């Protein structure tokens, strides 16, 4: 099992050289799998396939950076607590940045979804990428929902008293009480961001692992030379050592 990567060189600090049985350690196994799946050139590539040549490709990173701004503006709101934005003009401004970054987030995410659909981006063992994307969308809707419920104004009262019927109808109202501000706030600032963050990380790692989906074959009716899914291959041509493989 250790034949593929070989034993690492002894550390310069003079630590003892690794032994053959080290390879069985949980740490070593996880590290080997992680580094194998995500070598640095794949995690932070400096090359990408030539077919990635359209503005539609920027909507993934726009979605991601919007989410970062949502989190950042939310963090500033958290500094002063949930009543700050009702009492302070600066607080209202920060709340506005939180609202508009959320609008941008959904805007870019949906355009990203449309692009990925029309590229059939699930092809080539990228179904998990697609699925984690859809799940991110749904969890985002839920996260935004708990945010709207946490506003402590008329809008949150309205949304709560209206939404309770749908949620109660599923039985979830017994555990998830949209009229309970404290519960909704904690779901909004802790539980759902954690879940969303985790799913987004998996989604992005999957994109890095599989790479950007290649185009449909130029003649879509014709079968290509190599049937079946694409397995990671060595560097394409010309002796270029590149991490980004299809």
């Amino acid at each position: 099992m250790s034949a593929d990567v070989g034993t690492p060189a002894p550390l310069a600090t003079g630590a003892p050289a690794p032994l053959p049985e080290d390879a069985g350690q949980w740490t070593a196994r996880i590290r080997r799998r992680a580094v194998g799946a995500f070598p640095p050139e794949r995690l932070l590539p400096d090359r990408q396939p030539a077919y990635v040549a359209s503005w539609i490709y920027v909507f993934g990173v726009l979605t991601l950076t919007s989410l970062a701004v949502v989190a950042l503006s939310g963090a500033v709101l958290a500094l002063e607590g949930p009543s700050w934005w009702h009492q302070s003009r600066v607080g209202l401004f920060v709340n506005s940045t939180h609202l508009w970054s959320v609008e941008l987030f959904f805007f870019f995410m949906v355009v990203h979804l449309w692009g990925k659909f029309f590229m059939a981006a699930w092809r080539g063992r990228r179904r998990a990428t697609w699925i984690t994307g859809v799940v991110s969308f749904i969890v985002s809707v839920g996260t935004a929902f708990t945010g709207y419920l946490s506003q402590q104004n008329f809008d949150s009262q309205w949304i709560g008293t209206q939404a309770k019927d749908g949620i109660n109808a599923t039985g979830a109202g017994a555990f998830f009480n949209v009229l309970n501000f404290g519960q909704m706030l904690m779901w909004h600032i802790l539980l759902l961001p954690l879940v969303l963050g985790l799913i987004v990380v998996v989604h992005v790692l999957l994109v890095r692992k599989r790479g950007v989906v290649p185009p449909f074959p130029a003649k879509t009716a014709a079968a290509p030379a190599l049937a079946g899914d694409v397995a990671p291959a060595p560097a394409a041509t010309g002796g270029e050592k590149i991490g980004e493989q299809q």
Partner: protein
Amino acid sequence: MPMLSADQAASRVFGAIVNLGGPGTYLHWGFIQISLANFLVIVVMVVVFLAAILLPFPHRGGPRS
């Protein structure tokens, strides 16, 4: 349009250059009813999507084989 009560009529929004606090405009087509704001958002999304697909993408330099 029913009168808004004291609670709602004073929806002036602090600090906004464009006051979106006034009563919204709503568009009706058959059973569809949509706020002007939402409609504009959707239209802009479609325009941006088409622009993203149609606009030429700068040709990247770099090693080619």
